């Protein structure tokens, strides 16, 4: 995106040059483009979190109402109570921001932001469509899990700093719960990574393109089972009922946020709904094909971007927009299921929470992990057809390809079209070089060293 903005700015500068007669020039690596691109990314992602929270809170009220055989909000903002959350927000802003006498004031005030910023930072690594990701990282899946794990930090700080025993209990429960549930959740995330052979979320999504049978949840029976384990652990790790021990309003008043009011309190809720959406989106990328619809209309008609394609074209843009809609729909479906579960099941006791994790989720995840590894190792048949996978490569190879092409065009600017295929051919070999078959290594060694 930075390159695009820079080239746009450069085009504007050149036009001005023609009119005024100045000599302005902006290179593609200019800081302006990067700053503007970062600003746009942050703006869009904040919209996802904030507007998402607005919609989800309204949705939660409606779903809770329907499940409890009542209507939910009906009056604010028209027929369905659309603006109920906005009214709530205004109420929250108007509330007094209280800090208890026994609290540690600095930590008490910082804790909501810690929670929120951890949940928000993870969005930076979440791809919304083929190539549409704020930070395209080769270790995206791993980094998302690492950052999401920090969210508990804010809750623990809030529990400690409030100077209240209810908060402290809530914080301790949350710490115990999240630390335990990270284990099976990590195991579940490892399996799609293992099947795809990359931690790059964009690549994982692209590898599931095609018919819905390509989705990893249908890869083999173990991944199908694994998705449910993942979803359970994700529900627990974002602290939702029936695992909302940290809040437990019937036992602990309001748990870790007992002492909070006003805007700081709402930050905790933004963080919670933000991470609900995040883990659901992650589930849809890892197991449900991400931005790929059930029927590949755009891919089949050749309108979509090829994986890793850098050039802009309108049909690809439209296909990506459809991909975003796909991903958001899937994620919202996940969030809806979480709400459905919340208003259906009673809260577990702390020992039951731990039992669910250690005696059911961990062994199940381990069993599925072994099963999926065995399935892959024995090359048993699966719905994913392999022809798609040959085209998909890790992002760093694309990056290398792009840089090699750029360098080639720099050295020989007159004939860029002839140099490009050579660069691609040189890049194609590392695929063999990195495939873990030792016998292939000597042949690939020469080009492998160049590329790596």
């Amino acid at each position, binding site marked *: 995106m930075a390159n695009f903005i820079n080239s746009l700015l450069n085009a504007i500068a050149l036009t001005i040059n023609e009119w005024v007669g100045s000599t302005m020039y902006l290179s593609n690596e*200019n800081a302006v483009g990067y700053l503007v691109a970062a600003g746009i990314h942050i703006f869009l992602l904040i919209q996802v979190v904030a507007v998402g929270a607005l919609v989800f809170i309204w949705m939660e009220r409606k779903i809770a109402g329907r499940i409890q055989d009542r209507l939910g909000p009906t009056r604010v903002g028209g027929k369905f109570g659309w603006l109920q959350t906005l009214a709530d927000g205004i109420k929250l802003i108007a509330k007094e921001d209280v800090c208890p006498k026994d609290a*540690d004031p600095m930590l008490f005030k910082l804790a909501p932001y810690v929670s929120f910023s951890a949940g928000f930072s993870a969005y930076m690594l979440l791809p919304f469509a083929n190539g549409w990701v704020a930070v395209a990282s080769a*270790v995206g899946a791993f*980094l998302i899990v690492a950052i999401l*794990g920090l969210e508990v930090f804010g809750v623990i700080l809030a529990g400690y700093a409030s100077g209240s025993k209810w908060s402290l209990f809530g914080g*301790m429960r949350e710490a115990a719960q999240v630390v335990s549930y990270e284990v099976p959740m990590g195991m579940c995330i490892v399996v799609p990574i293992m099947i795809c052979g990359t931690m790059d979320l964009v690549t994982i999504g692209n590898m599931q393109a095609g018919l819905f049978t390509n989705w990893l949840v249908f890869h083999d029976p173990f991944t199908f089972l694994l998705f449910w384990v993942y979803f359970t652990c994700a529900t627990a790790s974002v602290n939702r009922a029936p695992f909302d021990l940290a809040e437990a309003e019937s036992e602990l008043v309001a748990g870790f946020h007992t002492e909070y009011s006003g805007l700081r309190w709402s930050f905790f809720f933004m963080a919670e709904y933000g991470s609900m959406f995040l883990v659901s989106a992650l589930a849809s990328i890892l197991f449900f094909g991400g931005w790929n619809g059930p029927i590949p209309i755009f891919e089949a008609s050749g309108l979509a971007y090829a994986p890793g394609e850098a050039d802009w074209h309108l049909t690809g843009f439209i296909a990506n927009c459809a991909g975003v809609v796909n991903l958001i729909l899937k994620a919202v479906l996940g969030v809806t299921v979480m709400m459905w579960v919340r208003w259906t099941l009673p809260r577990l006791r702390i020992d039951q929470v731990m039992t669910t994790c250690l005696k059911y989720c961990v062994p199940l995840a381990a069993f599925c992990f072994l099963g999926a590894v065995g399935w892959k190792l024995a090359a048993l048949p699966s719905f994913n057809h392999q022809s798609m996978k040959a085209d998909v490569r890790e992002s760093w190879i694309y990056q290398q390809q792009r840089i090699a092409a750029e360098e080639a065009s720099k050295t020989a600017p007159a004939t860029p079209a002839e140099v490009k295929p050579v660069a691609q051919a040189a890049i194609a070999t590392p695929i063999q070089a*990195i495939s*873990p078959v030792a016998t292939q*290594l000597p042949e690939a060694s020469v080009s492998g*060293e160049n590329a790596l």
Partner: protein
Amino acid sequence: MIPLAMINWHTFFFLFFALITCGFALAVLFTSNIVRMAFYLTLCLGAASGLFFLAGAEFIGAMQFMIYVGGTLVLLIFGVMLTAQQRFISMETSASEWVLAAIVGSALLLLLVRSSVAVEDWTEPRTSPVTLADSKTSSPIGLALSGIRVDKLEEENPALRDGMSGYLLPFVIVSVHLLVVLIGAGYMARTKRRGGPIVASRVSIPTTERRFSFFEKTGLFKGMAINAILAVLCFTGLASKYGSLAEGSNALQKGLGYVAALPPWLLPTLGVLFAVNVLLMYVVFSWQKWGVIGLFLVPLIQTWCLCTALAGYESPTTVVVPLIFLAVTLLPVVMLIGLICSGRPSAWSRME
């Protein structure tokens, strides 16, 4: 626009993260509240991972996040909140502690500075700019951990190429080590909660009253010495057989030569005996009287092994070494039997 273009953004962000890291590290030092310390430590470590990202080492940065920022700090806070008494919540460090910490800290700092200056590649600025492709290191790292060094495929030196098998062994060792720690932690926690039936049923004598007699000390010393010898033999043997100890003093060479001349089945046998010895300790501890048989048998087997192994040499060692070995190993057993027969309290009765 021009000022933005003129800033060196790499340097800017490096300074930014470095300042955050150092600033919060100092804040950790000068805070007395331990939970605030933990919070500052998080920011400090997080900024350090920012430095890694800036350097293009995404995988290391993510690891820093996962292990240090995430895992360690959550556990730290856990520990602090579960165990901290009032004295630790707001710590007051005495002058002597400051002096001690200053000495240790400055020594470590000197070591770090020295070692960072010692690397010649780091003393001059890197001429070629870091490209983005350099940063995609996760796949090579992953492959290196599973045994393939894709970055060293063109290594010419055959001795070095043998070492190019990646980091599979260290990786496995570390993971097994962590697993053992995990199981141990769980075991300890469970034992404590039950009131310690496992420990209490066997050793009922309070720690203060427990005194080892001369014979017990001898026995313990003997066990440790034999096992140490076995371990050393195993490792030197393995090292001389499979390792590449090309250089070394003459005496070492000679010794290794002797070890290399040993028959091939000896080392595995010694390894098994080592395991048997460990098992024996457990047997003696749990079913005391049966241990006598083991105490007899194992030295006999060891002596037999040594005799057969040394049969090839023409020196007096052939006879003398096994005999000395036998005498030393059997001595404590004889003493123990004497103790049992004379009716004086033995180690076992005291344990019981």
